[in-house]
């Protein structure tokens, strides 16, 4: 969790909004630091988190999480975190034919168009516990990242359907939040990815878009972050506010500053 980003977004773990879809998107840079931010943010906010991690291993997220002050291992033990490790289970699914359907069952299919098992997994994970009062505040679904599903042969429409189902369940029914990461392919002209990105941009409430600098690599500025609120949080706030900041990733935090105001230049 990066306090500076919380200030920019005007949120704190104590009063996280509910029912929102946040889209993280990166172009010509790596936006995974935002995933780490939201993972630690919601764990600290005492939310029940379902993390569909397709791109990295559990230990990677765990070690980075420890730097940000949360322990994924203990969160998983006490039932706050449900972690789907894509890399590990994909190998199991692929090489061992199991009878019971696995969330990543589509890996074995010739024409995967069905993310239903994955959705069932998410719904099962975030289902409110029947006995007694809820131990966790609100359910949160995190996906890192959706573009990977396209690489695995799932169509863009199927992914959009999946997101829609999740929104209906998590955001609307359970009054929870969703955070998904999608890569912007930029000039690679990845049509399916563009469909996915545009479709999600249309639905989401908050878009955080990280871009590499147009001038190329720089040691002191790693990229710029654009924040776009689709709906005003307060009725009085101006609509469709958009803000641009530059950032520098440090070992345990990220510092944000206005364009051209990097401490290295001043």
């Amino acid at each position, binding site marked *: 969790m990066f306090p500076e980003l919380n200030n920019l977004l005007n949120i704190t773990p104590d009063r996280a909004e509910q029912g929102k879809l946040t889209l993280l998107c990166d172009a010509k840079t*790596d936006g*995974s*630091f935002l995933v*780490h931010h939201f993972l630690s943010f919601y764990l600290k906010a005492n939310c029940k988190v379902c993390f569909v991690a397709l791109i990295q*291993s559990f*230990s*990677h997220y765990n*070690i*980075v999480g420890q*730097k940000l002050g949360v322990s994924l291992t203990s969160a998983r033990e006490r039932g706050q975190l449900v972690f789907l490790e*894509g*890399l*590990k289970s*994909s*190998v199991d699914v*692929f*090489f061992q034919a199991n009878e019971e359907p696995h969330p990543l069952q589509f*890996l*074995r*299919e*010739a*024409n*995967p168009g069905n993310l239903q098992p994955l959705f069932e997994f998410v719904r099962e994970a975030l289902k409110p516990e029947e006995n007694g009062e809820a131990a966790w505040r609100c359910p949160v679904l995190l996906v890192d990242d959706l*573009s*990977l599903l*396209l*690489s*695995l*042969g799932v169509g863009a429409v199927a992914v959009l359907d999946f997101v829609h189902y999740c929104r209906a369940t998590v955001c609307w029914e359970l009054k929870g939040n969703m955070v998904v990461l999608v*890569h912007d*392919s*930029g*000039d*690679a*002209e*990845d*049509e*399916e*990815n563009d469909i996915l990105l545009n479709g999600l941009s249309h639905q989401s409430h908050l878009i955080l878009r990280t871009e590499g600098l147009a001038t*190329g*690599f720089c*040691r002191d500025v*790693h990229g710029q972050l654009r924040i776009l609120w689709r709906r005003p949080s307060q009725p009085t706030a101006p609509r469709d506010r958009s803000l641009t900041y530059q950032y520098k*990733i*440090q*070992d*345990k935090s*990220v510092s944000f500053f206005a364009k051209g105001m990097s401490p290295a230049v001043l």
Partner: protein
Amino acid sequence: MAAAATCGTGAGSTASVASAASKSKVTSFQRRGPRASGTDSGGLRLVSIAGTRPSVRNGQLLVSTGLPALDQLLGGGLAVGTVLLIEEDKYNIYSPLLFKYFLAEGIISGHTLLVASAKEDPADILQELPAPLLDDNCKKELDEDVCNHKTPESNVKMKIAWRYQLLPKMEQIGPVSSSRFGHYYDISKRIPQELIEASNWHGFFLPEKRSSPLKVESCSLTHGYLKLLQFIQNIIYEEGFDGSNPQKKKKNILRIGIQNLGSPLWGDDICCTENCDNSHSLTKFLYLLRGLLRTSLSACIITMPTHLIQNKAIIARVTNLSDTVVGLESFIGSERETNPLYKDYHGLIHIRQIPRLNNLICDESDVKDLAFKLKRKLFTIEWVQDNYLRQERNIYPPGFSYLLKQKDSAWGEGSLQHSTFLMSFLAKATAFASRLVRHGEPLKQTGSGRIRQAAGPRLWHDGRRQEAPGFLGIPP
């Protein structure tokens, strides 16, 4: 060792402080002993595998790519459990070299190899691996090849401190020990046969695997990829690289090399058409391979003819699915071949992606303009900027480019001082030349000691003064 280190090869930096401290011998300067035996590795749990070292940044175990210069650019080496993707150059001349360096390093370090190809028999690939430069030869070769000094002193061993000569020799001469991380190789020679025979390797040659009966699989993976994945999974499982049977034998690293992945020989059609039926085959294969690697002690190098892939979207996806991506761009057939800036090089090397492992940031090096050069024996990577400065040195008088390089000096290009200096320099030179013509004076007679003493500001402090005495000898 001192001589090699001063040449800027970077090999010397591997001698770690930690192991030096564990030895209670005479000096901290001494080289680390062979770690393979494991006799002296007291508390170092991580470095118990030969040819590896832990990363300073993220604690991940690293292996060498077989090219110390590349190791440095990638943040110390290639992390175990990750994929290194080499984008092949247009005519596939230089990328096989990197591939072979990686495998040769595995043989020297005693790692298990898995070589997969659809084009050449893996046994043949192994035969063509470059020979390692032995420790004692190494210094000589590096002196010859890397530091190309014209001075006759380069053969004389540099002596930094005389007293160290008296110390007993600690270095093991013989077959290169795995004490060092990353070795140099001589591409003009082949690796000794006995080293190959002693090594443990597995070959995957696609045409041979075709003979097996085609099983109808429900998944969408191309036949070649499927076979290869099953092969790799088998090796990892049977030889215990996944840590399933740790008690069986000593831990070792599996080095996987896959040649020309994605080429039509693998039965993939992404190189032929833009909208192919099984365009997800390659990305799916890479994802599953990544899954296999992350759960085992293995590192993988893949060379891929990305310039052949018709659909740019696939390249972007492949890059996202690999950890480290290095692109080679050779000058052959391009305009850059005749560009004087690149006259000393054979191509450019692009570090496209460096993985973020256990960390928010990655070890990205600040140096971006890198070029490679294939010398008689070595493949070297250099900073193009160096060459640019070297050229500048030929244009300007000696010592002048040094002034230009000084960051804080007011002598930057375009500044007042710069132009004044150039003008006065040119004026003096013309005046002198015209005087020569007028008096018909021969050049060497002007360079007498007395006049040189009287010469103006002594800006030029190197050997060239003797070559052009006339310029300095102008009486004010």
